[in-house]
Every structure is written in structure tokens, then in C-alpha cells.
């Protein structure tokens, strides 16, 4: 049985006519924009810019985490969940003027999967049938990506994956025109050609990137802006001054920490701030393979020892304390779950039962960018109260990531600045890459080296619930899985960060657009200039 689901683009078109088009806005970033190749870009700056230039078969309703077809007109899922058929919209044009067809989808996916492309997102798509042979060079194409006709793409999976549609909305699956890629060669990331709302106008390396409206964009009336300027190399403190002077309209890196309290106290400035949730959890990994953290009682004791309220205050209350793995807003998040409350006395008691009445010594790794060393020191002080002496190692991010992925090296790691923000709004993105057995390998991101085969099987079963209408049951299943994880306590969840976006008074757009959970930091296509 195939059931077609229709797009909702019409309603956006109506919405679009309410805003007056035109104008230009400027966004500031501290770090450089590395590349605008959708198969490669994977950092804070380029994520949303790539979304502005390119697009995929799927996207989300603006400002929400609700999936909708984008370049696809609709899709159908086979009953066994192992085959997805997408119908492409007709008349979508790449920025070089050519119409997009199904072969482009196949080309784009295969290009991303090709090891020569070195895509950091290839790992999301290894479940497509035939990818292994293709990657190993045994096949010239991916057998599981089929194009029965110029406007139909069928993708076959080895096993059902309820998050597959999310993956087709991920930047890595965005559609690129073959001829433009081949023309630019390795420099495609600096000469991007997509079918998104904006196209690249100018790129001054290390200084600025300018986008301009794509007049052929398939959603009529969008985008509102004529031009969008990204200034890079802007220290957040200086960008803040520029915003007040009107030289910058959106602080891409957020409000500088030193100014945060003042801004929120100022009735005028406060109106320029939009608060949103992000699907993020900051946690301390407890390496389940290193003594004495291999003892669940010890891990539970450490969970009870941390005063998360105090840590949240250190970052000016820009987060909410966390008790579980999943962040609020993620399907499967359990608002009634209490977790491990702050209770040093009980923590000491548990340590005693585990055979450590006088505590023990261990090492806590942390990324060295502010505020992470401060947070690590707060954790260190809390641990000291129950007799656990944690020596701090604050190092460069790459060094900490390397330590976390090395078997038996890092007893504890504060994840801040490195992990974990969702790639796509599905609970399995908080399980497979960071808590599954498959990720507890050298070089992996399961820094707790936690492996529970029973939970792996349950997660697999949950991922097989692919049909519309099964979402609630699946969320429930993941809720159960993460409750089990917390019983084993491989992590100390610390907080879920909130997002604060500051903009100039002339920026128009609903709050949901300004802190879009998918198009982070901002959904540029729906921004407009207030007049």
C-alpha cells in the first residue's frame, strides 16, 4: 500500500505575500566559513548557509521539526519500511538554469558517498542498499538508489530506519548539478550551485560571503531578502558593538557571555533577543571500562553529586539542568523523569557501598574554550565534596576528541563544546552515535564506552517503526531505552542549552524563524527587513 503525502508549500506562498520583499541583512561569525559544499560542510557557520543555497528532497516546516517534502512533491514508504519512493517536483531549476531531475538526486547521493569526496556525513547513509559495494569500489553505482523515471527516485534500505526521511533533509543529501560540480572540481565548495533560495554572489576569503536572491526559486515569493551578507572573523564582543551601531543585524555566535546579563536586564535590548530551545545535551561521560567507573554504583554516586543548578548559574542561566539523555522537544523526552537529584549524602553512601568510603582519584577532560574549563572546575569541586579527586585536563578540542575515542584513556570527559547537538530531530541520533555498542570503538564518539546489546536490539526494533501513525509508539520505545540507559548511568547529564539570538531592530521574521531548530542559527529564506 502506498500513500502519498502532499506538500504544504501553498500555505507558505500565501504567508510570503504579507512581507515586502527586498533589502539586505548582515550576519556576523567569528570563525571562517570553510566550505559551502553540502556534502562536506558540517560546522556552525556553514550549516545554515548551505541550507540557503541548496535544498534536498525533504525539509521541515519553517521554525519547527515537522518534516515536509521540499524538492520532492511527495513520497511513499513501502510497508516493510525498506523502500522509499520520492516524486520530484517538476520545473525546479538549479542556479545554472537547468531543470532538476531524478538523476541529479542519484548523482548527488553517490557523489557524497564516494570516499574521494571525503564527506563527513557519509556515515548517515550506510544503510542504503549497495553502499558497501559502491564504497569498496566493487560497484560503479549504488544499487539501492534507483530512478524509474526522470521524476521518481526510489531508495532501498538494508533494514528499516525510521529516521531515514530526516536524513533526506540533512545537508549531506542536498542536490547538486553534476555539470557544475565537474566544472569546479575540488573547488565546488567555493563555487556552489544549488537550487535553494539564495545563490552565491561574492566570496572574499577570510572576510565575507555575500548571497543574493535566487529569482528562480521554486517557492514563489521567497526569499524576501535581496542580499544576505556574512561577515567572518568578527569577535563576538566586537560584533555586539557593531550590532548596536547598526553594522551587523544578526549575531551568528550569540550574545557575548560578558554582555549577556546586561542585555537581558536592559528593557530595550532585551526586545532584540529571541530565546529558543535547541536539541542539545551537555554531559559528563563516565568510562564504563575504567576502574572504578566500571561499577554502576560508583557512576550513580557521581550522578548524585553534581549541583547542576549552580553550573547553570555559572553560564548566566542560559540552560536548563538536565536529568536525562534526550533534550526537551525531542520525541521520547520524558518530562516526568526525575533522574538523579543533587544529594551528596546519598552519593557518599553509595560510594561507601561500592567500596570507596574515602573516594578515589580520577581524571576529567574538558575542551579549553570558555565556558568549558569553568564548568569542568565546578564539576571538579562537586566531586571533591564526596571525596572524588578529579584532576583536570583542559586541552584543545581535537586532543580531547582523540582521548575520548581511545580505549581506556579518558575516565571522564565534560562534553561541552563538542557534543551533543542533534544532527536531525530524532531520538536515534542520541543513541547510535554516542551510546550504542557500534560506537564504542576506537575513534568513536561513545566516550563512556557504554555497550548494552539488549538496548541495541530494542533501538533497532524502534527504528523499524516507520509508518505514519507509529511515531507515538516509537517515541515511547525510545523513552524506555533512555530510561534504561540512565539506570546504568554511563553519563552525568548536566544541562540543555537554550539559544539566544540577538538581532537589530530592522530584522523581521517570526521568533520561530529566528531560532529555527533545524536551520541553525536562522532560517534565512524567511527573514525580511522591517520598514
Amino acid at each position, binding site marked *: 500500500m502506498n500513500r502519498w503525502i502532499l506538500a504544504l508549500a501553498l500555505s507558505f506562498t500565501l504567508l510570503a505575500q504579507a512581507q515586502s520583499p527586498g533589502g539586505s541583512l548582515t550576519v556576523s561569525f567569528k570563525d571562517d566559513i570553510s566550505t559551502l559544499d553540502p556534502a562536506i560542510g558540517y560546522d556552525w557557520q556553514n550549516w545554515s548557509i548551505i541550507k540557503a543555497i541548496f535544498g534536498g528532497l525533504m525539509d521541515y516546516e519553517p521554525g519547527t521539526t515537522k518534516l515536509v517534502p521540499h524538492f520532492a512533491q511527495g513520497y511513499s514508504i513501502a510497508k516493510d519500511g525498506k523502500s522509499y519512493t520520492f516524486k520530484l517536483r517538476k520545473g525546479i531549476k538549479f542556479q545554472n538554469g537547468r531543470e532538476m531531475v531524478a538523476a541529479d538526486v542519484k548523482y548527488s547521493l553517490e557523489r557524497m558517498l564516494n570516499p574521494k569526496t571525503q564527506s563527513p556525513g557519509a556515515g548517515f547513509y550506510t544503510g542504503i542498499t549497495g553502499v558497501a559495494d559502491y564504497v569498496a569500489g566493487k560497484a560503479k553505482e549504488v544499487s539501492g538508489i534507483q530512478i524509474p523515471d526522470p521524476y521518481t527516485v526510489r531508495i532501498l534500505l538494508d533494514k528499516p530506519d525510521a529516521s531515514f526521511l530526516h536524513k533526506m533533509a540533512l545537508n549531506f543529501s542536498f542536490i547538486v548539478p553534476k555539470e557544475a560540480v565537474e566544472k569546479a572540481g575540488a573547488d565546488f565548495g567555493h563555487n556552489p550551485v544549488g537550487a535553494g533560495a539564495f545563490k552565491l554572489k561574492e566570496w572574499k576569503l577570510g572576510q565575507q560571503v555575500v548571497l543574493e536572491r535566487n529569482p528562480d526559486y521554486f517557492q514563489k515569493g521567497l526569499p524576501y531578502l535581496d542580499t544576505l551578507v556574512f*561577515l567572518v*572573523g568578527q569577535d563576538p564582543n*566586537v560584533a555586539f558593538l557593531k550590532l548596536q551601531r547598526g553594522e551587523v543585524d544578526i549575531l551568528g555566535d550569540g550574545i557575548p557571555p560578558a554582555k549577556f546579563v546586561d542585555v537581558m536586564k536592559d528593557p530595550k535590548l532585551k526586545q532584540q533577543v529571541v530565546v529558543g530551545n535547541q536539541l542539545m545535551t551537555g554531559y559528563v561521560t563516565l568510562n564504563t571500562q575504567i576502574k572504578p567507573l566500571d561499577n554502576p554504583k560508583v557512576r550513580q554516586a557521581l550522578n548524585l553529586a553534581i549541583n547542576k543548578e549552580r553550573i547553570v548559574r555559572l553560564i548566566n542561566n542560559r540552560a536548563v539542568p538536565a536529568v536525562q539523555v534526550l533534550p526537551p522537544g525531542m520525541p521520547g523526552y520524558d518530562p516526568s523523569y526525575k533522574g538523579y537529584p543533587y544529594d551528596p549524602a546519598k552519593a557518599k553512601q553509595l560510594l561507601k557501598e561500592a567500596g570507596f568510603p574515602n573516594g578515589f582519584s580520577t581524571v576529567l577532560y574538558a575542551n579549553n574554550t570558555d565556558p568549558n574549563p569553568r564548568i569542568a572546575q565546578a564539576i571538579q569541586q562537586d566531586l571533591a565534596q564526596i571525596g572524588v579527586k578529579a584532576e583536570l585536563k583542559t586541552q584543545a578540542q581535537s586532543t580531547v576528541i582523540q582521548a575520548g575515542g581511545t580505549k581506556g584513556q579518558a575516565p571522564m570527559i565534560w562534553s561541552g563544546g563538542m557534543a551533543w547537538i542533534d544532527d536531525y530531530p530524532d531520538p536515534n541520533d542520541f543513541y547510535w552515535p554516542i551510546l550504542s555498542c557500534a560506537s564504542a570503538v576506537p575513534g568513536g564518539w561513545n566516550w563512556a564506552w557504554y555497550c548494552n546489546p539488549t538496548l541495541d536490539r530494542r533501538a533497532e526494533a524502534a527504528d523499524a517503526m516507520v509508518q505514519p501513525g507509529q511515531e507515538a509508539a516509537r517515541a515511547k520505545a525510545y523513552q524506555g531505552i533512555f530510561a534504561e540507559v540512565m539506570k546504568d548511568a554511563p553519563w552525568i547529564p548536566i544541562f540543555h542549552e537554550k539559544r539566544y539570538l540577538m538581532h537589530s531592530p530592522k530584522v523581521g521574521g517570526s521568533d520561530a524563524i529566528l531560532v529555527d531548530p533545524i536551520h541553525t542559527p536562522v532560517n534565512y529564506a524567511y527573514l525580511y527587513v522591517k520598514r
Partner: protein
Amino acid sequence: MMAYLAQRVLQSLGVLWAVTVITFALLYLLPADPARLVAGRSATPEVVERVRHELGLDRPILQRYLGYLGGVLQGDLGRSYLQKIQVSELLASRLVPTLELTLAGVLFELLLGIPAGILAALRRGGWLDQGIMLLSFAGVAAPQFALGLLLLYVLAYKLALFPLGGYGGWEHLVLPALALGLAGGGWYARIMRSSMLEVLSQDYVRTARAKGLAGPVVVYKHALRNALLPIVAMIGTDLGTFMGGVVVVESVFGWPGIGQLTWQAIQTVDIPVILGAVTFTALFIVLANLLADLVYPLLDPRVQYR
């Protein structure tokens, strides 16, 4: 002098080679796996291995080094792991801004340091001397990031005399160069002062002064030229090291210099960019020091090229 020059150029090639060897060895020791970082956080071990192969990181270190050296000799510095763009293109885009900031920074150091040093030496022990000493030490001890923010806040934001950072015409250059000048000028002032005192204490100068020759003439004709030798040495080292980038000043003022590029490359273990930037810097250091060595005999004829 031509023989000396030829010899120095040969030696300089040796220096550059040594720097690439050291850098390569250090990168090898670096506790981070670039293949892993490129492959992304969702990559399976198999994907990482294939990326490692694509990057050529599975080859033996010697082979990698020879490959790099061969590339450099043909003018090919490789491609950035993360930006996938030619390293030479990245370096080229930073060359002019870095050169501008370097020259302006050294100029400000000299403008602030040399007159201050001469004045301090001539007014030795007086309040002017002590005031200059205090300012010199304060400039050197001032943390650069805070100093930069302060300059921006007062001169650019409050008084609106200069733009709020960024790259552009000379008006963009003044504040970052001033920040460098304030930090480095103190050194020049102190060295100039002691160098002047040393020369002024020498017999022939004392004799000249005793004969009633006017102060400024003595200072100019006899003292200054000799006193400048260590200053030239400092200019040489500053030209060289500034060309390697001044990370803090660049990042406060949003200056697209090579320092920010290198710093980001080091953090992301972007090996081709790191190698390219270090080699680039070494080239300028060697050049600047050579230049300084060539200037000494012009200032003091008794010093010979050797």
C-alpha cells in the same frame, strides 16, 4: 658581498628544509587523527579508514614527507582537508593583509619606541625618563585582547574615529597597528635607551660633548647610527614573526591575517594548511633576518659581511 649573499641564500634553504622536517615530525606526534575529524562524527571505522587512504595518511611518514617536499618544489602546497581549497590560494588571500599589518605594526613600534627611547636616554633619571619607563612596561604587560577591546570601545565605538574592526583602507589599519605598537614599542624604547646610554658613555662622544658640540649634533652624528644596530635586529625579528601572524590582534580587530588561518588550522588539525603556513612564515623570518644582517655593515662600517 655577493659571495656572502649567495652563501646566505644557500643556508636559508637549509633553514627552510629544517623547519619543514621539524613541523612534519611534530604533526606526526600530534595527538589527533585528522582522518577522524574529516570523516565526521557519524563515520564508521571503515569510512574513517577510507578517508585516511584518500588523504594519503596511511602511507609511511617518510613517503608522506617526500611527497610534500616534492609538491612544494613544484609550487603545490596541497589542499586544505576541511576547506578543500588550494593551500596556496588560502595563503595568497592572507598575504596582503598580513604584510600591511606587519609593516604598519613595526612602523608604530618605531614611531612610539625610538623617540621615547632617545628622550629617556637624554633625560636620564628625570621624570620624563621614569614616565616613559612606566609606559613602556605597561604597554608590554598589557594583555593584548583587553587592550584591543579597549581601543575599539573608546576610539571606534564611543568616539567613532575609526571603523569597528574589519579589513579595508588605512583607517581600518590604524587601531590594530596601534595595538601592536603599544605592545612592542616598549621594547624598542628600552633597548634604544640603553643602547644610546652605552654610546653616549663612550670616550669620543664624551669628548665631543666636552668640547661644547651641541647635544643634538652629537646625538645624530655619532650616537644614533651605532645605537641603531640592536634596533635593526629587533625590526628583523618583528618583521619575521609578525608575518607568521598575530593571532590575538587579528581576532580582536577582525583582520584577515595569516595568524587566524593558522590558529584555526591547528585547532582542526588541517595538516596541509599548517605546513603551508609554517613554511610561509619561515620564509619571511629567514628573509627578514637576512635583511637585518645586510643592514649592519651599512650602519657600522667596521662590521663586515662574513
